[in-house]
């Protein structure tokens, strides 16, 4: 059971990794999707984690969204869907997030949305 401090350190290091990889969008997205804070008990930690993912997603130009998603594994796509819903709770970057949601639904299907709704491991 990692406590909030260790989780936040992990998120901060993931943030640095993503920032360094921003020039290669697919790698940045993959890096942002590692190590989700499933055991976190604080809303703040989860929001920080979602911010890191949004940073990676926003850096991808529109035309490449499809190819980035195609490069993700099934588990990563599910995790991405969960992050998109978490990030849509706030109101920043909603236009881009909605674009990502549309492409991801097309590629991964309704099952992806259902898993985001029903899995007890929430991001």
């Amino acid at each position, binding site marked *: 059971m990692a406590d909030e401090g260790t989780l936040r350190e992990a998120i901060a290091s993931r943030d640095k990794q993503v920032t360094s990889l921003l020039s290669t969008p697919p790698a940045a997205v993959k890096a942002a999707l590692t190590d989700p804070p499933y055991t976190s008990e604080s809303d703040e930690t989860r929001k920080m984690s979602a911010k890191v993912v949004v940073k990676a997603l926003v850096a991808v130009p529109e035309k490449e969204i499809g190819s980035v998603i195609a490069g993700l594994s099934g588990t990563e796509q599910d995790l991405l869907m969960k992050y998109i819903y978490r990030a849509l709770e706030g109101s920043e970057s909603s*236009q881009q997030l909605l674009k990502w949601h549309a492409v991801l639904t097309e590629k991964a299907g309704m099952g992806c949305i259902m898993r985001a709704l029903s899995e007890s491991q929430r991001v």
Partner: protein
Amino acid sequence: MSTSQQPYLQCVRSTLTAALCLQNFGCQEVERHNKPEVEVGKSKEVILNPVVISRNENEKVMIEPSVNSLRFSIKIKQADELEEVLVAKFMRFLMQRAEHFMVLRRKAVPGYDLSFLITNVHTETMFKNKVVDFVIQFMEDIDKEVSAMKLGVNSRGRVVAAKFLEQFTY
């Protein structure tokens, strides 16, 4: 106006289609009872993760699914006080006639303007895609109606004021 709304409505549509997989599920606490589990809120295992989809700070939608029911709450864009009053009155009008809508909830969830409660009975008797179409169409029409009402109030106010002040001129 509607083209900028399209991604938002599309997202809501696909989430709603996925969340509307409802089936009959009897109450676990009281025998022979059948309650919408999202309203009871007591058993954690039958309630799924709630999802909030926001377009901006003023407009958002919350979808709370469960095994046999779904609660869909809308927060409508209200730019100024006049729109707030108009929306409040309009929603009150609709919620008083909730029986005719069948899927409308008589009270909105706190923090939102209007709520729908869709249960497995509704999905069994009605086409699921038509229910989703109805909700999305509702969301589109609400914005148009509120702005039309606002224009109506302003123009009527102008006419009334002009007529009233006529009596003070020669």
